[in-house]
């Protein structure tokens, strides 16, 4: 009998958490039209976007280079090394750009957000804001949410572009694929709406997911050192799994066989 009681209690607890998270997202979404929050948001773009730039550029470069190296060794067997360009570009734009950026973003920015907000809660900064009649959703959550939503697609675009350039360095400069065919077959294959814009849509969705999870985990963290460390771990684990699961759904919807 205890099993059923526990199952029910867990389900209710999870549902309550989802409701709580949705209310928080709602509050953050509609806290935009505050002119004085714009400097706060710009500062958060610096924290979330600019400070993630280095890891994004370096990993984009190396992933593009590795893809060119791996793709070349297989394609050259069929004399199809001209297709290296579209292979690198399509896999970066459609999949690796949004997904790897979101995973890195969850690890680099999401965990920091959870820890920061959890510590704010533990040191009762959020309560003090409420005491001063300042809505913490508006003052703390919303700027971080919107800054992340702006930064994430930008980082994904930079990742893809740097990766394609990295593929060019390895494929054309080192392995001797013809530069003309690298770019021209890529141009003939990659489509603006279908490939580039769908990749950006993916990164927006992943950004929403990562930020929502990170902010909620921080906001609802148990205000002890152990609770914060647990919340930070959960942010990275849950958002990584959600990204990978959602990626399959989005890919099936966008590029799946009709």
């Amino acid at each position, binding site marked *: 009998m205890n099993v059923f009681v526990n199952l029910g209690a867990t389900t209710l607890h999870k549902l309550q958490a989802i409701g709580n998270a949705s209310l928080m997202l709602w509050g953050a979404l509609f806290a935009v039209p505050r002119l004085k929050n714009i400097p706060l948001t710009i500062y958060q*773009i610096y924290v979330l976007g600019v400070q993630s730039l280095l890891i994004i550029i370096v990993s984009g470069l190396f992933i593009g280079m590795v893809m060119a190296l791996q793709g070349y060794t297989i394609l050259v067997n069929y*004399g*199809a090394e001209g297709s290296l360009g579209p292979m690198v570009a399509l896999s970066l734009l459609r999949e690796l750009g949004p997904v790897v950026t979101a995973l890195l973003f969850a690890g680099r920015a999401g965990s920091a957000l959870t820890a920061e907000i959890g510590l704010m809660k533990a040191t009762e900064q959020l309560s003090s804001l409420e005491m001063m009649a300042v809505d913490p959703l508006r003052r703390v959550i919303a700027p971080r949410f919107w800054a992340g939503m702006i930064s994430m697609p930008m980082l994904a*675009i930079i990742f893809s*572009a740097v990766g394609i350039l990295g593929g060019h360095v390895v494929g054309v400069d080192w392995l001797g694929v013809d530069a003309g065919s690298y770019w021209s077959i890529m*141009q*003939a294959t990659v489509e603006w709406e279908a490939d580039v814009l769908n990749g950006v849509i993916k990164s927006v969705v992943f950004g929403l997911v990562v930020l929502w999870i990170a902010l909620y985990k921080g906001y609802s963290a148990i205000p002890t050192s152990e609770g914060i460390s647990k919340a930070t771990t959960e942010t990275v684990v849950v958002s990584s799994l959600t990204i990978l699961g959602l990626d399959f759904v989005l890919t099936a919807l966008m590029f799946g066989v009709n």
Partner: protein
Amino acid sequence: MTSRKTELLVGIFVAITIAATLLLALQVANKGVSGSSETYTVFAKFDNIGGLKARSSVKVGGVVVGRVSRIYLDDKELIPVVQMEISMDYINTFPETSSVSILTAGLLGEQYVGLQPGFIFPGEDPIFLEQDSFVVDTKSALVLEDLIGQFLFSRDSSS
């Protein structure tokens, strides 16, 4: 609060993103060149289009002059009709006697429409391909299975 340095770094971040978007738009997806120019529509009927798809290119001697916009089945004759958008730069260039064939780029490459400009007889007023004209002389895609079938059949009958 935001200091001057933060704003500058965010500005650099935005500038890098714009540069990356431009790279993706112009260099990777080739958005600016192919999408903007005006086109005229030409149709061609084939017996078999093989692996031709919408957005395959139309080439004259290797130069891309247009793209396949739509492929559909003629509802009376039940044969495929390929609708092509040719760039306005090439209006009044190709004579009506031009022929189109479906070719393959390399052994494993994608299929494209090859346009072979026809003759202009000296002394006559040339008639050019224009909006909504049909190209009459068409050659279908090479289907490997048919070719093997023909080969086997011809060998069988000769022995």
